[in-house]
């Protein structure tokens, strides 16, 4: 693990560069293939609405994978992420309208830990509502 980001240069309240991730149906299809999660609610609108969902929804794990990019982009070495956890609090409906939705992610250092580690708290929202709860990562800095 190597990063140029120094623990001494970070404090509680340090903000990480935010990220906007556009999501269209094709992204969900691609993620289904790469991850092996072919649950029908992530690609078939007819089925998704028949089980009470507003539309096809993004994989929770797609949202989780996208959100941590704020941390890995910041730190450079993805191996610096030693812990990462989220709660899935809202679904992310993805309409087939040629536009899709935007996932907006931001992060902030919320705790300085021992051994050069920091806790980062992430916020992920779509259509103005947060979609992840207790989204936190522990990151090893230099």
């Amino acid at each position, binding site marked *: 693990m190597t990063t140029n980001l120094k623990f001494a240069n970070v404090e509680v309240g340090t903000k990480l560069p935010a990220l906007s991730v556009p999501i269209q149906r094709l992204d969900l299809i691609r993620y289904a293939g790469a991850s092996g999660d072919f649950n029908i609610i992530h690609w078939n609108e007819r089925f998704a609405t028949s089980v009470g969902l507003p539309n096809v929804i993004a994989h929770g794990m797609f949202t989780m994978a996208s959100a941590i990019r704020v941390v890995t982009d910041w730190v450079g070495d993805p191996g610096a992420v030693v812990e990462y956890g989220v709660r*899935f609090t809202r679904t992310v409906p993805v309409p087939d309208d040629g536009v899709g939705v935007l996932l907006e992610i931001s992060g902030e250092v919320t705790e300085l830990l021992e051994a050069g580690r920091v806790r980062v708290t992430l916020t992920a929202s779509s259509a103005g509502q947060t979609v992840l709860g207790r989204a936190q990562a522990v990151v090893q800095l230099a």
Partner: protein
Amino acid sequence: MALNPDLIGRTYPPSEPYLVGREKIREFARSIGDENPAYHDVAVAQGLGHADVVAPPTFAFTFVFASAAVVILDPDLGLDYTKVVHGEQSFVYSRPIVAGDELVVINTIENIRAAAGNDMITVKSVVSTTSGEPVVVTTKVIVARGTGAQ
């Protein structure tokens, strides 16, 4: 019908070894639109001190998810998979996953509890190399809608 709490603590046999492929890591990274060179370029990953390209932090879920079929499909658990949603997910790494790792998953039902008419099942998945080196522990909470005691 509430799920059987007697299954708390049940541990399933280890999964077949999963060989982490370089192209699989690249494919996964591309699927989330992530061009971080540590996922794609062996020389960059090695420059960071890794043996090969690094897996993104949530990559482990792909093979852990597949291995957890033994839990989801356990007839003693009686889960209706069409009523299951993902409630929580976490990863605690001992070290990053890199291409070439051969990994084994051991799944345990850590908890079953009722909440607001649903059953919440916590599954802990311990991932180690085939030679026993600990790599990552993932924990997921799955919510079985409408099965819990009211």
